[in-house]
């Protein structure tokens, strides 16, 4: 069969046998919206967006499932088709948290907040990590209006975080089926599929067991193909869309040496991807999820160190490090042991062989996944007998007691370890994609691995350092004399499979679970250090008496804090740390009871620290709750009989409660206006109705109360009030500020929440600009004059640590608590 012609929208186009109408249209540059179709997967026909009209064909077939045929006459964009698609899309959007598409402020919001807010769970486009990549959003942009006014459903029980690496938020799922189809394609027997029927239908493994309990290999292909953000990479999702082309390299973490693609953003490796969707190129859980986490680990070494005469490790760089290694080898000629690994690049191994020769040292090469101290028995005996005065260890292969047998120690490593404090010399090594080099293929031939990202600090490929050392010994850089045959893998070697048992557990003497704690959920071993840390976790602290989820991402905690409860005043806040090593974060006191000795907080999950707090349950303890801090609201400014508008958004809905209660008790007329993106994000309505004269509910999509936000309410009715206090996110308060009426003597306040450290006016982290003055939110605030705050600066300061915050986003935190 040969190419043939058909007519699409009046245009004669050519198609090949086997093409669908959609493919023929795409080839001719005619756009037909489609979501479930995927060029590498067989036609599925679920989203129903790609419907077309074809002469002599009944109804409106989907172009993705209809084979193109000679002489066909196709129309893709009639008015009827547009209506049909718009309504199908509306049905789809009603099953997807899409209130942002009904919000009048969306354009402003997305200009101001160029990246989505990093919240615990996605509740709308604005808090969805997938926003920059979303296929559904791509179709809905400029093509979507709510005509039938269908409410959006959102269900907290549809959020699953109990599996390693993959966050699942089925509220976002449109059941396009790409995930299980790609799973089927790669693994033949798919681990996941749709389970249940009707509205209970969702992507899951059989009987809704945990994915980690079943066939799932965590190859991550489903995440890469998910168009909506239902399936996301827990660690890497907030980096957003890559900003440069994918780079290819080789994974050295096990002997299989798979080629893989790296997703690069801001010069960082933010994820990996299989070369193709074929089963030959599939990645294992380590290649997919652990590889990038190792590179970005907070435990990486960046600075070289040399032990001084006084026994202190002094930072040292480049040449100084190489010089010192040369000295140590020179001084300990014939009495040095070099511990390397066959998992290193060929260039490093060759250099170590050269060193062995030049300095008369003993070289031992361990397998890359060798456990600590697993030296050959004769060498081990020699070390224990103190035969070696100097040990140079690449990686974390030797324990402190063993290293201590030598007089001098040098360590080259990519990540911190406990033994490094003993080192007379410490090299920070580049690793994985930071490092180009040669590896052995299964047959002993060579594979080149390319470097994909630049190095930070003193990190260098070890082979570079070693070449400098050898240069001092008079060897030229090609080291040709030390070429050696890479060993072919032994006969009968089975290429590692994707099974957990086959995956590497260690790399360069480090436990992989130290870099990706989610591996523990797959039964990977825990390092002794991690065991010790877990055991040392403090049990003392402030008990959580009650805990409930108010709305997605909003947790209410009632905490035993009798002293604080005695002194708390409206508007004050406290600093909370979930664990002794957590970040210090300020949270407004949402309620308290001096007699019963408790305080309440509404915690909005916006990052790692708040997620850690959100994951706690009643009965758990918070390591630190310090407060009350901040200047309370001066209630005397509000006279009985005067009127106050309290505008609350997000956590502010909780924060305005004590203000309303106190003001109402003083005879002030209190009107509360609360805003949320959609009905499912509202909370506290009954409590607020009980302490206010009027409660105005506003939703951005109009699903409850009036459509709009607090700013609109202020614009309409703000002039009626003697005072306006707005509490919410920076965007909301900024909008309110712009909407303020001209009214002489009106009190206009907001409560600010900048990044804060000590909360007592010492560090200066929380500085804000108000009316040209620099003030500290912790002691001068939190209340400032709404019309004078520089919200732009506040927003910028809050985003100053964005990348670090993303890197620190929670990995597995023991199953987030959603209900």
């Amino acid at each position, binding site marked *: 069969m040969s190419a043939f012609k058909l007519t699409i929208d009046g245009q004669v186009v050519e198609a090949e046998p086997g093409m669908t109408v959609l493919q023929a249209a795409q080839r001719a540059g005619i756009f037909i919206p489609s979501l479930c179709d995927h060029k590498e997967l067989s*036609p*599925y*026909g*679920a*989203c*129903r967006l790609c*419907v077309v009209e074809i002469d002599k064909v009944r*109804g*409106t077939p*989907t172009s993705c*499932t*209809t*084979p193109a045929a000679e002489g066909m006459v196709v129309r893709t964009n009639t008015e009827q088709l547009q209506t*049909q698609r718009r*309504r*199908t899309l509306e*049905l*789809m959007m*009603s*099953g997807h948290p899409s209130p942002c598409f009904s919000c009048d402020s969306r354009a402003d919001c997305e200009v101001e907040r160029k990246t989505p807010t990093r919240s615990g769970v996605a509740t709308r486009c604005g808090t969805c990590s997938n926003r920059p990549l979303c296929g559904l959003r791509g179709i809905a942009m400029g093509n979507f209006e709510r*005509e*039938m*006014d*269908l*409410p959006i*459903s959102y269900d907290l029980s549809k959020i699953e975080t109990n599996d390693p690496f993959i966050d699942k938020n089925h509220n976002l799922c*449109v*059941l396009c*089926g790409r995930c299980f189809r790609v799973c089927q394609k790669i693994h033949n027997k798919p681990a996941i*599929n*749709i*389970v*249940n*029927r*009707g*509205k*209970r*239908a969702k992507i899951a493994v059989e009987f809704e067991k945990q994915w980690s309990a079943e066939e799932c290999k965590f190859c991550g292909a489903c995440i890469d193909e998910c168009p909506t953000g239902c399936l996301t990479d827990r660690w890497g999702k907030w980096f957003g869309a890559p900003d440069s082309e994918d780079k290819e390299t080789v994974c050295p973490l096990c002997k299989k040496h798979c080629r893989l693609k790296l997703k690069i953003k801001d010069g960082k490796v933010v994820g990996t991807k299989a070369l193709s969707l074929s089963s030959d190129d599939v990645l294992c859980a380590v290649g997919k999820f652990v590889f990038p986490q190792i590179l970005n680990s907070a435990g990486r070494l960046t600075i070289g160190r040399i032990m001084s005469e006084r026994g202190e490790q002094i930072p040292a760089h480049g040449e100084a490090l190489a010089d010192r290694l040369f000295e140590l080898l020179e001084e300990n000629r014939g009495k040095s042991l070099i511990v390397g690994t066959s998992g290193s690049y060929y260039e490093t191994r060759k250099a170590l062989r050269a060193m062995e020769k030049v300095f008369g040292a003993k070289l031992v090469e361990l397998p890359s996944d060798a456990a600590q101290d697993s030296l050959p028995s004769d060498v081990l005996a020699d070390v224990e007998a103190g035969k070696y005065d100097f040990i140079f260890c690449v990686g974390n292969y030797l324990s402190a007691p063993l290293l201590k047998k030598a007089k001098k120690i040098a360590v080259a490593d990519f990540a911190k370890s406990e033994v490094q404090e003993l080192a007379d010399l410490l090299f920070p090594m580049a690793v994985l994609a930071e490092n180009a080099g040669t590896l052995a293929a299964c047959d002993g031939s060579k594979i080149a691995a390319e470097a994909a990202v630049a190095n930070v600090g003193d990190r260098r490929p070890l082979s570079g350092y070693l070449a400098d050392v050898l240069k001092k010994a008079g060897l030229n850089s090609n080291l040709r004399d030390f070429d050696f045959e890479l060993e072919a893998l032994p006969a009968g070697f089975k290429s590692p499979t994707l099974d957990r048992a086959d995956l590497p557990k260690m790399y360069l003497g480090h436990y992989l679970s130290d870099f990706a704690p989610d591996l523990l959920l797959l039964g990977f071993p825990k390092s002794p250090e991690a065991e010790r840390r877990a055991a040392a976790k403090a049990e003392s602290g402030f008990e959580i008496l009650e805990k409930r989820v108010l709305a997605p991402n909003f947790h209410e905690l009632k905490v035993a804090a009798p002293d604080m409860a005695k002194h708390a005043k409206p508007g004050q806040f406290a600093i909370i740390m979930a664990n002794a090593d957590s970040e210090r974060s300020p949270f407004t006191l949402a309620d308290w009871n001096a007699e019963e000795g408790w305080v309440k907080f509404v915690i909005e999950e916006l990052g790692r620290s708040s997620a850690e707090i959100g994951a706690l349950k009643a009965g758990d303890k918070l390591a630190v709750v310090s407060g009350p801090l901040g200047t309370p609201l001066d209630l005397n400014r509000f006279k009985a009989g005067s009127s106050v508008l309290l505008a609350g958004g997000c956590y502010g809905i909780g924060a305005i409660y004590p203000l309303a209660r106190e003001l109402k008790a003083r005879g002030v007329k209190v009107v509360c206006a609360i805003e949320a993106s959609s009905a499912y994000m509202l909370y506290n309505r009954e409590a607020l109705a009980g302490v206010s004269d009027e409660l105005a509910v506003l939703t951005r999509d109009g699903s409850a109360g009036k459509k709009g936000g607090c700013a609109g309410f202020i614009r309409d009715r703000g002039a009626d009030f003697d005072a306006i206090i707005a509490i919410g996110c920076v965007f909301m308060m900024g909008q309110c500020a712009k909407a303020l009426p001209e009214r002489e003597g009106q009190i206009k306040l907001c409560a600010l929440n900048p990044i804060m450290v000590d909360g007592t006016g010492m560090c200066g982290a929380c500085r804000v600009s108000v009316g040209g003055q620099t003030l500290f939110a912790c002691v001068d605030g939190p209340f400032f004059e709404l019309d004078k705050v520089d919200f732009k600066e506040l927003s910028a300061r809050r985003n100053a640590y964005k990348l670090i915050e993303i890197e620190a986003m929670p990995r597995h935190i023991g199953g987030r608590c959603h209900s």
Partner: protein
Amino acid sequence: MEILKDLRESAKSVWREFSDGSKTRILVGAATCGRAAGASALMDEIKKECENLGISDKVDLHETACIGLCYAEPLVEIKSPGAPSVLYSKVSPKDIPVLMSEHVAGGRPVVSKAEAAMSDEPYEGITPFKEHPMIKLQHRIVLRNCGVIDPSSFEHYVARGGYEGFERALSMKPEDVIEEVKASGLRGRGGAGFSTGMKWGFARASQSKDKYIICNADEGDPGAFMDRSVLEGDPHSVIEGMMIAAYAIGANRGYIYVRSEYPLAIERLKLAIEQAERAGLLKRELPGGFNFEIKIKKGSGAFVCGEETSLMASIEGVRAMPRPKPPFPAVSGLFKKPTNINNVETLAAVSSIMRDGAASYAALGSEKSKGTKTFSLAGKIERTGLIEVPLGTRLGDIIEKIGGGCSDGKAFKAVQTGGPSGGCLTKEHFDLPVDYENLGAAGSIIGSGGMVVMNEDSCMVEVAKYFVNFTESESCGKCVPCRMGTQHCHRLLEKITSGEGEMEDIERLKKIAFTMKQSSLCGLGQTAPNPILTTLRYFEDEYVAHIKDKKCPAKACSKMVHFSVDAEKCRGCTMCARACPTGAASGSPKKVHSIDGEKCISCGACYQACRFGAIIRA
């Protein structure tokens, strides 16, 4: 070609002994429906009584299947030697001693319990079966053996012309068999109504070593039980139909996809397949090289498996979800081989058509809808049951003459035909000849043949909600319009029946329904809005009453009705108080009772319980 030549003679003698033997023959209607009505207990009672009377050796006791008079179950048929058989209805165990001593031992029919006599003329004043009001207008082709033979007897089936159609087919060219079926005008009885002969022609045209015939016995419509009755009552008619179809298209393998909720049907099918295998009809090369085997696949209760691509997926062992066509099953079906799927009733009709010839079948029915169709009558109708009538029979005749009109003397309001995919028809449609074209034009479908009758007490919004609730939970979830559309329709109907509806909701329902019809992937989603659209078409006033007046005209929507006690009529019998689940209805014996509006959940239990009409429903 007479494969069963030898067998046929012995079968005939077995049948003669059964139908007119020297012993008194007792038949108990023991299909699933009969058993539910107490047939098993009757069997035990009859055996016991035989022993008591010492007549066990003179009695020939058999189970048979469903003869279709569901309202009259359990049924017992007694035939004394040389006399016509008498059908007794609503037989309870305490009736057995009389029936046994009078009719069985004494040869005297018990006229007061008799429903009909299996004779041409009245027998002892008992109406002949064919004159029975429910039977008179029927023409039983598919149901020819149901309730007549012992379904576990291969000989009974064979003696009544069984496998003659297959033998005739085997003597013809496959293409001629297809032509014969085309000529009969038979259309798929599963619901779509596509020409069976043409469908076979497509599968015949596909070239493949392996081809499949699938019998779709996944009867899932609420209120439909035609296929179950046929499988339980005459399993060989379906197997024979499959063999004919297999021969016609060149298939070598067959599957019967049957719901696991039909254990008796499965048991009977298993036995029938074994019998056919033993008789050398299956799993053996027959003259001409035809060699066919049949396997049973039990479904697990997903409504969407009635859709053929889902059904095939289910047999293949993967999740049952429809896939787009093309490719059609005739080209690439089960395990990617050419496949033909027919419904139980279609196949049962085929065996009859091939035996008696296309002409006699085509002589029945209307212009484009030939032959007969079975219907299950259910709901608020006097005579519930299974019937078979020529297509084109007046709807009014079916409801009023065969079904006897509404039960309890209530006024007829509507009949839902075609299950959840069908629609409602009203009294105005009584003159409509029931066939594919006419029902389609009226906004409904024949579907698989369910007819659920609703009376003045049925709220049509509630009815639409019931069916949409069904399709909502049975939607496979694959395509957006069906998954989301059913959810929103159900929610909107719930809103309306709760008294919170707005007039805009009617427009919304229409828009969603239209989108579902236009855009859904399979028949489930495309037809799911039919109950809404037809109730809106014929009963929009009821919707409006719910929305504007906040009233349910049928007083069926619990959130819109209030119950109180009519002091004049209340006798203080305490029945309402005892029936009330929440303690809202209360009072002292012999004193006027009352209903506490705070506690009342408007369930209507008191209304049902009161024998004096003293509960006011408003």
